[in-house]
């Protein structure tokens, strides 16, 4: 097992190295002149050149790449040309916000997706099944930002239950910073009012994000549950008189979960990379908006930082999922 984990982590290195090389190359191949842009319209040619030297952009691309890699090893993720600040510092601010959003969305999607999927399969071809299928089909088809706008309209504008955007009330002090995720930080501080406030702000964007994975998980879960229900061992189990509740928990859920896990793993990465629209609609200060701004200004280092972070998280999360297979289904042997 340990062997397997170590091997997978070692395999991660060439993946990230390749990824960084690709993004670095694409960044440098694009037309445009980020230094001229960052120096501003009134900078003299000398000032523009000085800025390029300050950021090491006067050197050949290969040297720049090497410097970047060696910098990474020392915890230096480079600096943003626009803000002139270290990228790592920005990531520490923006990543937790996005992670909180993605994790909340995944939590909603997993809990409700599995429950609804199970329910639909057990009550196959009943009204529950039909309505679940209809809703999940509609959810998959609906763009996230549009759903976000709808939620805003209903819950913020008409009902006034939620705020239009943001993470926390403007004038209240947020809980002491530990993880950067406000819900978790407020719980760590034992501060229930803050937790509820943070949750209130998180609810709408998390719902907007969760619908698409929720629908997919529901459909996956429904299909695999139906498959499991038709297996011979289910017949045996039923014949043995095992109570239906236990049957569901012990035999159906575990067996049906394996394929759903794969979807969860993939969706995690998909959500991480695709938060930007929801972040824009809800003014959620996360990594998606940060990356978009960097891309618009061809600010290389933040782009590199975001890609590597998302890449690492994605691969790590999928590794965790792979390990979970073994836990849920002992038939899957790792090693």
């Amino acid at each position: 097992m340990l062997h397997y984990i170590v091997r997978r982590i070692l395999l991660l290195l060439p993946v990230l190295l390749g990824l960084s090389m690709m993004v670095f190359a694409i960044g440098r191949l694009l037309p445009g002149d980020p230094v001229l842009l960052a120096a501003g319209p009134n900078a003299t040619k000398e000032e523009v050149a000085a800025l390029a030297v300050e950021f090491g952009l006067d050197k050949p691309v290969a040297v720049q790449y090497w410097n970047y890699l060696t910098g990474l090893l020392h915890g230096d993720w480079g600096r943003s040309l626009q803000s002139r600040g270290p990228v790592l510092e920005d990531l520490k601010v923006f990543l937790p916000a996005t992670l909180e959003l993605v994790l909340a969305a995944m939590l909603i999607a997993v809990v409700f997706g599995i429950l609804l999927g199970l329910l639909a399969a057990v009550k196959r071809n009943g009204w529950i099944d039909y309505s679940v299928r209809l809703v999940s089909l509609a959810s998959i088809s609906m763009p996230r930002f549009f759903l976000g706008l709808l939620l805003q309209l209903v819950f913020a504008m008409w009902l006034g239950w939620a705020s239009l955007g943001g993470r926390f009330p403007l004038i209240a002090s947020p809980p002491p910073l530990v993880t950067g995720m406000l819900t978790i930080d407020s719980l760590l501080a034992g501060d229930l009012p803050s937790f509820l406030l943070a949750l209130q702000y998180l609810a709408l964007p998390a719902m907007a994000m969760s619908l698409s994975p929720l629908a997919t998980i529901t459909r996956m879960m429904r299909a695999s549950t139906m498959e499991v229900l038709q297996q011979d061992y289910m017949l045996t189990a039923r014949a043995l008189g095992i109570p239906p509740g236990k049957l569901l928990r012990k035999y159906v859920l575990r067996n049906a979960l394996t394929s759903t896990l794969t979807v969860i793993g993939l969706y995690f990465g998909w959500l991480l990379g695709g938060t930007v629209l929801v972040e824009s609609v809800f003014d959620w200060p996360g990594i998606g908006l940060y990356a978009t701004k960097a891309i618009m200004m061809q600010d290389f280092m933040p782009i590199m930082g975001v890609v590597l972070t998302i890449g690492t998280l994605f691969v790590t999360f999928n590794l965790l999922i792979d390990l979970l297979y073994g836990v849920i289904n002992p038939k899957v042997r790792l090693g």
Partner: protein
Amino acid sequence: MERRSILKGAAGSAVIASTLGLPAIAQAQGRKILVIAAGQDIPNFDPHVATGYSASMLHRNTYDGLVRVVGAPPKVVPHLASSWTISPNGLEYVFKLNTAAKFHDGTPVTAHAVAYSFKRTLRLGKGNAWMIAGVVDPNGIEAVDVQTVRFKLLKPFAPFLSVLPWQFIVNPVLVETNKGSDDGQEFLRKNIAGSGRFKIKRAEAGNLYEFERVASPWLAGGNLDGAIWKIVRETSSQRLMVARGEVHFAVDLTSEDMDSLKDNPAVVRVLEPEFRTFSIKMNTAHGPLADINVRKAISHVFNYQGMLDAAGYAQLMVGPLPPGLMNDPKLKVPRTDLEMAKRYLAKSKYPNGGIKLTMVYVTGLEQQRRWSLVLLDSLKKLGIELEIKPTLWPDMVASTKTPQTTADFFPVYQTGNYADPDNVAFASYHSSRNGNWQNPVYNNPKVDALINKGRGEIDPKKRAAIYAELQQVLVDDAPDIFGVLEKRRLAYRKDVQNFVFTPVASNAIELQNLSLK
């Protein structure tokens, strides 16, 4: 700890209150906190490095300059400097500092601090350094005594007082203590070393910046205890928030937003002309538009009324310089006249048109797209085809490096950075700006000479005559289709008092005298 839990209780009840439809800014509970919704983040606080309207807002409220700019038309008024004298040849400025002025740590703002700040600006060559680089002699800045500072200029520079509101004074002791290897840039990026009425209480990148009034500001002002610069990226969200009373100010609104706020009795709309011009620059150095007759023909065939109609709240430019900045009222600019256009075209190499030109515009800027279409439509009348290319801003900037890569038509918003005709004239038409987007290619030695003469002349009458001549030369040479001045579109709640619009940096709200009811 106690105050925080009270605040939280207040915020919690405000959430419930907002459920009942009460405005969320009632949260402040006795504390006067002004909330501004704006689209731009403030990633760097250094007054000698950072630029942009959000940074300007932070600087003018946490730091001080020797003077301030107020009102419309903008006037320079004393601030850190209580008075000044200018030598008759315009080469020496002596400022007497206000002895009351204090940095946030309680130490006085001295002449040494002023000299230190200007030298640091020139040393770094970033931010607003361009306004004084080549003008102020770095070795000629001298603290005569604690209260007196003298500047020697390399050449007379008439707009000197106008650029001073944007040169901020830092606390030298604090910067020197945290100098590091980069002249304190790392320190000032996240810390304030100023003397302004406010300091930063909370900074959440990409989300909000909270300002708190310093315990005893050295200058009297409005009743604000603090302010919040809240980043709201969508203009429609800004509009909703100001309409619902969730913020007091919205600073980036569209014409459509302004229309929908028209009937809201709780909101004051500000629609004022400012020194921000929009022109379509022509490639005077490469391609068919290098021919002055083609340019003049285009200047006369362009549908100005169509442009204005597509612009929302705006007015047509009546010359290269915006009104209020020595714009010459007698100047006659081209207006749509097909006969005249055809006559000019007949004198060119392309008497019957038959050429294809390109225009770039910034991807996503709807207004520029509409104006491109107005141009396309106008050019058809001369048998000229137009290819319109939406282009990403970084690519557009990069394309201006050489005349060959610059498009035939290049649209430019020119923001007024300081209240002086030199600002727009120099940035838009001086050949030293070639190879960058404000003036990619236009190079006319006569224009350069007039601009240089204009910045060096300190007699206002003679200056006005120079700028009148400059504008006539520019109109005759037709380097641009002189476009529109879009009005600044701001909105604020009625309970904000003492707001005075000024056409320079108008969305970098100055908190100094503002009050809340």
